[in-house]
């Protein structure tokens, strides 16, 4: 939670700013080169497609997290929320099969249910944070535990599986491509585009940054701080529900281990992308790159057996730290910064 970044930025703004914009992109390119060197199959079309599709889940969730964090909040519940929404979707669709058959209607009912749950869960987080005046960390830590245990409960500790009859109808949402890109990737692109516009081109986005930057200023500017903050959690919930809609057809199941640690991944993607954890400055574009970087690291580690499996976590940790360090552009600049201060 160092705010060295923004303060550094404030001093030697122009060059630093550029590096901040470019940083995550450079880190991603370096990673891809590393992947290619380790194993040329890394750049095969199939692998790139896999990579993009996998990034979609975390990416979509992280776009939502960008809003929450920009407005100075945090949401730890997203992984559990995804699990419980997936679980309920499956239950609902399985029981809808009886009435509505195995057609598109049932899938739409499932998706609608997911969206409603996502919005509702997000609203609960927002309401408790703003009106209940409880720290976002505590609220979402609490709901994280609640959702996780609810999905375990619904699944009776095991796995909720989507009725095989409906899978055929739903499968294409994950497995089919459109114009060369899998549907989840399109969804990711869509969410990113909307998210980018919302954050950078609407009053709402500015309000998020203003609130994250200085709540009092936002308040005195006649901004309804509580409403905007709640909205960020609702957006986060919506993003989780969209991610869940493309997640469920993949394996057609949900269990208590679904979405474990997605919250940390999503937050990490946001921060790697250059958004400031303490709020006030958010970048959807960076978040997208952050999600791609995280997925690529995992992917690269599956592509090599140079290091012990047990050390995967070490590699992952090191690469994340190095990637962020590289993208901060602090190398060789420490002197200049010091001077500027």
């Amino acid at each position: 939670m160092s705010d060295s970044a923004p303060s550094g930025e404030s001093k030697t703004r122009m060059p630093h700013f550029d590096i901040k914009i470019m940083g995550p992109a450079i880190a991603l390119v370096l990673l891809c080169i590393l992947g290619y060197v380790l194993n040329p199959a890394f750049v095969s079309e199939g692998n790139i497609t896999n990579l993009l599709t996998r990034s979609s889940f975390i990416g979509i969730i992280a776009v939502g997290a960008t809003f929450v964090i920009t407005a100075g909040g945090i949401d730890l519940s997203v992984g559990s929320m995804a699990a419980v929404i997936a679980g309920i979707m499956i239950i609902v669709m399985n029981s809808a099969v009886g009435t509505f058959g195995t057609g598109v209607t049932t899938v739409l009912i499932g998706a609608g249910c997911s969206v409603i749950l996502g919005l509702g869960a997000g609203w609960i987080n927002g309401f408790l944070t703003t009106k209940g005046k409880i720290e976002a960390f505590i609220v979402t830590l609490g709901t994280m535990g609640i959702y996780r245990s609810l999905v375990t409960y619904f699944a009776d500790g095991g796995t909720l599986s989507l009725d095989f009859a409906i899978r055929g109808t739903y499968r294409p949402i994950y497995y089919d491509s459109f114009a060369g890109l899998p549907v989840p990737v399109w969804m990711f692109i869509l969410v990113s585009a909307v998210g980018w516009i919302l954050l950078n081109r609407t009053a709402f986005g500015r309000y998020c940054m203003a609130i994250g930057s200085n709540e009092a200023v936002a308040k005195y500017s006649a901004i309804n701080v509580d409403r905007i903050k709640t909205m960020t959690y609702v957006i986060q919930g919506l993003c989780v529900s969209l991610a869940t809609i493309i997640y469920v057809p993949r394996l057609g199941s949900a269990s208590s281990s679904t979405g474990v640690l997605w919250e940390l991944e999503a937050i990490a993607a946001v921060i790697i992308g250059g958004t400031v954890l303490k709020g006030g400055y958010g970048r959807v574009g960076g978040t997208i790159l952050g999600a791609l970087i995280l997925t690529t690291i995992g992917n690269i580690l599956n592509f090599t057996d140079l290091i012990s499996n047990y050390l995967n976590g070490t590699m992952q940790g090191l690469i994340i730290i190095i990637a962020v360090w590289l993208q901060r552009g602090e190398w060789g600049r420490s002197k200049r910064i010091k001077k500027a201060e």
Partner: protein
Amino acid sequence: MQGQSDSVPILAADRISKSFGSVPVLFSVSFDIRGGEVHALIGENGAGKSTLMKILSGIHEPTSGSIRLDGRNVDLPPNGQAEALGIVLIHQELNLAEQLTVEENFFLGRELTRNGLLDRAKMSTSVREHLQAIGLDISPDDRISDLSIAEKQMVEIVKAISRNARVLIMDEPTAVLTEAETALLFKQIERLKQQGVAIVFVSHKLAEVKAIADQITILRDGQLIATKPAQELTPDAMAQMMVGRELSDLFPPLIEPDIDAERVLQVQGLFAKGVHNISFELRQGEILGFAGLVGAGRTAVFEAICGISQMDGGDVRLKGQPVHFSSVAAARDAGMVYLTKDRKEKGLLLKQQMGINLTLLSLPKFVRHHLLNARQERDALERAIRRFDIRVRDHGVLAGDMSGGNQQKLLLAKVMEADPAIVIIDEPTRGIDVGTKQQIYHFIAALATEGVSIVLISSEMPEMIGMCHRVAVMREGRITGILTGDDINENEIVRYAAGLKKAGDDERLSA
């Protein structure tokens, strides 16, 4: 425009009282604002001016009393929503989001949109126009955190002016401005007046008040003292009504330091970011002024010397010994401290209490057996409150809740707590009332007599002229001249500061 003053007031406060918790701050104050009129509000630090202004713009709710808008009783909506009613407030505390750009702040809360999306081109153009209209060289894309305080204040002012207010309330808009910028502001005020806007102007600069105000209201300790037409009051009369006693000379008599006094600080060929080849000397017991326009690099010089920022080259000697402070702590331990001009961002912890702020810089002094000595700290607070006449009704108050002037006094007290041998004070009297200013000037003079060497950075010309033994003038990162004796006058300073004259022009100056 004078004729309009007998029309119905646009905004009127009727017997307003206000308490924070159990602490009363305003006592049954009435106050009228009419269109086309500048109504100045003056009073000592902590008199309740800002509080009254916040009540008139809906930020605070009065504890009792009523507010009338166009003759009708209203409950003003909270949180700046009163802007919709045409009441715009320029906060004394800068009210800008640091991480956002000028344009983003400018339109915060009332963005222009087209089809639901921000019309950035239009907003940007509008901001640029407004900035240019007043003559400011700031880009709409600049981040607030990159601006100087004066620039921030100008952005606030321009932002408020652009809002087409019926009532424009300005709480000490000129405290951080130079005379040139103040002139810009006054031109705008005149223009707005012509348009029938009602303007409330809070300031401690009584000459300004005299120059711009039509009506003057004086507050003392939360009580309404008088409301009078400006013609009837001289600055001296205002000062007297504010503090409730006769004020003697503002500036103490200057006692020249011993001509053989030790040269405690010698700077030769200093380079740092924004400053070039700075050389000067400071003698024991001397008050050396640093004058110049905003951004001339005065602050930068001393931030580099005191270890706050990096020095790129040059030689600094303290009592003849070469020194290179790599940290503020090192400078402090060597007896040199710097009082920042930016009390909100760099000076005080706004969410902490007075006592914690007071001792922060000199904390090692309060350590006994590795522990902080609470009694000693409490004593220091009591002493500082007396010595600097800090007026708070509750010693547990958070620094951010203190009145602006009292914050400034607390900051001064904090720096003095370090018992410096050399003290650099940057804009020490910002937002300070005349009575207190006088105390501070006497205090500085007394320090000098005791042998403390002082660098006084100030944009207030009278302060330079009235207080300093010598004045160094800076322009664009260079010292253009060092004035002594009778040369310390407004004319000379301005000529050096504006670059019309350089040290080379006159050998006598390079002390």
